[in-house]
């Protein structure tokens, strides 16, 4: 099965450092067309309505994992801003740091101008004057590319004062993230932007109602923004034809693990895991046997028939929640204890330390994983693990606590309670 290249159409074909190579392949045409339409106030209102309608009709939803309908998010924030006369802020979330996810990094490296163009159009649509692009602090290359892309867009007058007849100037600020998984959570990200310690906040209020500086704020993933220009090019109807059911459009999948050809691939939503792994990824590496596949960092361990289920944002039977689209293929040579340890280490390190179950629970799980790895499990560990997983799932403040509990839940679901009994498992 071939990739459906919508967002990644130009990736690899253009020079990310050269805006000309992007323009020569039809880049910034959508922005120029949009700018032509908004010469008058009336035209602007019409263009706004047209794009909002287009996005809502297309069924585009957030690519950051939760899958919230993008058009609705924009509408809520826009209406709130108009009503309260507060400035609206747009934050583009490039703090990709979940293990096994590298699609935003791929996009930024290969085609930064697609993102910038989307940002500028969206900023005009939402009448937003200040945009923050929050990029993971360890992404040195991406940061440089994005900074140069913004400068180039400014020099080519796609940004700044002389772009339109309107007085407003859109400012895009590239922010180097403070370095932490939790800043990918939108309220923590806003905290971090405000100069505070990033800690997820209780919702409601959601950022579209009250976010950065208590103003309505739209937080979108890099990939969501990258969808905007292709969507304008092809129209809602054509876009809807991609995908399955209500989950429309394409999704970038970062495949890692024991496949012949790992990497970032674009497929319509609704594609099956088998098609990706045994199609473009070329199947398992030589001499390795599939143990299980995991999707989204927190999903079930999948084998056999389950590989034919479709990857989607919809809930239901025979459907796999796609999350960030990170696919981990684990072969039978991998010791699951090591995997559990590395996951536990990640969650214990990256918890913000705010609420009890997550701060203390992830640490205790790490200790249990450590003992599991060294085959020094204590009698109480199984029971303790179950209790911790329960409080993490039910009582933690933000979804992160739930994520931290999932690997344990899934490993027990997959291997049974015997997984904790080293003697039994060896047989």
């Amino acid at each position, binding site marked *: 099965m071939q990739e459906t290249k919508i967002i990644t159409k130009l990736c690899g074909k253009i020079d990310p450092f050269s805006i000309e190579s992007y323009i020569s392949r039809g880049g910034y045409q959508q922005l120029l067309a949009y700018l032509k339409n908004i010469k008058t106030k009336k035209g602007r209102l019409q263009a706004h309505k047209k794009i909002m309608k287009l996005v809502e009709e297309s069924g585009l939803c957030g690519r950051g994992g939760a899958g919230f309908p993008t058009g609705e998010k924009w509408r809520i924030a826009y209406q709130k801003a108009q009503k309260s006369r507060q400035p609206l802020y747009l934050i583009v979330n490039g703090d990709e740091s979940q293990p096994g996810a590298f699609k935003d990094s791929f996009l930024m490296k290969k085609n930064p101008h697609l993102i910038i163009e989307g940002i500028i159009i969206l900023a005009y649509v939402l009448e937003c004057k200040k945009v923050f692009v929050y990029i993971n602090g360890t992404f040195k290359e991406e940061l440089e590319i994005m900074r140069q892309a913004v400068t180039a867009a400014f020099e080519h007058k796609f940004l700044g004062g002389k772009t339109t007849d309107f007085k407003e100037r859109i400012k895009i600020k590239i922010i180097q993230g403070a370095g932490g998984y939790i800043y990918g959570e939108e309220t923590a990200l806003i905290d971090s932007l405000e100069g505070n310690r990033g800690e997820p906040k209780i919702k409601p209020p959601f950022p579209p109602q009250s976010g950065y500086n208590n103003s309505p704020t739209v937080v979108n993933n890099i990939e969501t923004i990258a969808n905007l220009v292709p969507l304008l090019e092809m129209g809602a109807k054509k876009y809807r034809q991609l995908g399955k059911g209500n989950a429309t459009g394409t999704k970038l999948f970062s495949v890692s693990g024991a496949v012949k050809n790992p990497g970032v691939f674009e497929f319509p939503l609704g594609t099956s895991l088998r098609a990706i792994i045994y199609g473009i990824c070329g199947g398992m590496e030589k001499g390795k046997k599939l143990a299980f596949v995991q999707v989204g960092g927190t999903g079930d361990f999948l084998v056999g028939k389950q590989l034919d289920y479709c990857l989607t944002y919809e809930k239901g039977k025979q459907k796999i929640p796609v999350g960030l689209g990170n696919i981990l293929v684990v072969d039978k040579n991998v010791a699951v204890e090591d995997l559990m340890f590395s996951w536990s280490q990640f969650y214990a390190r990256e918890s913000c330390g*705010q609420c009890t*179950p997550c701060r203390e629970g992830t640490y205790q799980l790490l200790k249990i994983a450590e003992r599991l790895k060294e085959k020094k499990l204590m009698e109480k560990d199984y029971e303790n693990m179950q209790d911790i997983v329960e*409080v993490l799932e039910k009582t933690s403040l933000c979804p992160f606590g739930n994520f931290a509990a999932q690997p344990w839940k899934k490993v027990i679901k997959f291997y049974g309670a015997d997984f904790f009994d080293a003697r039994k498992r060896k047989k």
Partner: protein
Amino acid sequence: MIKIKINQKQYQVKEGQRILAVCNKYRIEIASLCSHPNFSDFEKPAEQDRSSNAVCRLCLVKARKKGERKYQLIPACILKATAGLEVITEDAEIIRLRKTNLELLFVNHAGLCAHCSKNMDCELQNLAIKYDIDEFRFVPRLNEIESNEELDLLYEKMSRRMIDTENPAIVRDSEKCIHCGRCVDVCKNMQGIEAISSVGKGNQAVVGTEYNVPLECSYCGQCTTVCPSGALTEKNEIGAFVKAVNDPNKTVIVQTAPAIRVSLGEEFGMPPGAIVTPKMVSALRECGADLVFDTNFGADLTVMEESLELAERIKKGRGVLPLFSSCCPAWVLFLEQNYPEFLSHLSTVRSPYMIVASLIKSYYAKQNTLNPKDIFSVAIMPCTAKKYEASRAEFRKDGVRDVDCVLTTREFGQLLRSKGLKLAELDDSEFDPALGISTSAGAIFGASGGVTEATIRTAHYLMTGKNAKEIEFKQARGSVGVRLADFKIGNFKLRTKIVYGLKNARKVLEELKKGEHDFDFLEVMACPDGCIGGGGQPIPTSPKIRRARKRAIYAQDKNMSLRMSHENTLVKKIYDEFLIAPGSYKAKKYLHTKYHRYHYKWRK
């Protein structure tokens, strides 16, 4: 008013009220460590009008909104009452979850109860007993030292563990901290200082100062009143007191603050606002104090000096206006640290207990031919910042400190309990008359607005030559953080601003910086409702308890015959015998002080 159901029983509540507050009102017990009734006073953005950050995850309840089928787990401190809401506060699952969370919290804390000053009076301990937890179920997160490298870090005080005893007022022991965030909240939202906050992330997260330096703040001590465990406590000076009492060469002289006589009873199970002055004095004598003086008398002298200063600044234009009160050491230190440009506004008068202390080691020592070095001067205060103030260089003469030791109300209660004294059973006793006669103008210093009211009473006399017809200036009283009060003194209209909480004070100062001011006199108290809500006051504290204490303070005022400082016979006597007159060079020497810009020792 709407109807909701809690545990199958109907209650009438206000819409939007938090369920935790409702449960507290109707005495339905819910375990909670991170919310605190004090927090309802904070000014927060409208969206965050809750009493906590909901981080302890102990007050979980099951709730079902009208029309919903399933119950959902949600913390009671953020759950708002809506019509038809059904709440279950305890069932097997909730208890199990709470217990696990408590055990997770307790594991970093275990093992130090017996010698903790909060022992038997500790919220965490009470919950641990109630839920019958297993203290050693998990591996401690912070106590572990895994390698020599970490041990080295511990020596360099860069470790995650920190026992800060270097600062003069507050002991911080991060080993006992359970990361509830109350102190962070109070420091940030009530005082606006942010001296402590969360440090590190994930399994390294602790509450601490930046770079783990010793605490260097205004030492208001509000964090110690909200801490549910023993992680933040006042610096204990009971030992020094007991040592001095047992030293035959030392004359131990104790003075007691206006605000402690209405709160000390709480340490012995009396209701808030019980006035225990005579019993308190005899308790001090039982503890071995040779003489007991009254800080209220110092307050009377403060009023004399401060009202003269105010009258002079207004009438003769000497010095700048507005005049700031200087009774609160936390406020003075805050100004020295953050707004040194406003120090000229600050009244140079010492705080009341420093006036009494200064007179003890000068006037009283001279009269009774005592060597100041042989006097051990103790002050019982509702305040931790006073511990800092006592250590200041300005309050030292020839190497002898004016005040040798400051005990908080809590420490005093602890001392009495350790001696087996029961306050209610003691005989009545009176202050020693040498420096112990006071008026009720001094007594109301304990509440926010009291300094202003007492000063106006005397300033009226000074500026017009006669007393005001109605001496109860009700406009100075109130429980709002920032309030304006206008007074008519003859033909002159005196505008005053009364503030409590340093965050409020900062707001007022920022306005002043811009040149906007509509007042001539500014009274600031760092703690909510003034000294009666002080950092050294009995735990627990809440707006309700503070109201009871305040009522008692004003009831005291009503019942006294002498209600104006200038009518105090002892004040007149001291001026005649020793200080000459208010504002004289001798008064300047013994009753006034100097301020200077504060240079941070540790903080970067």
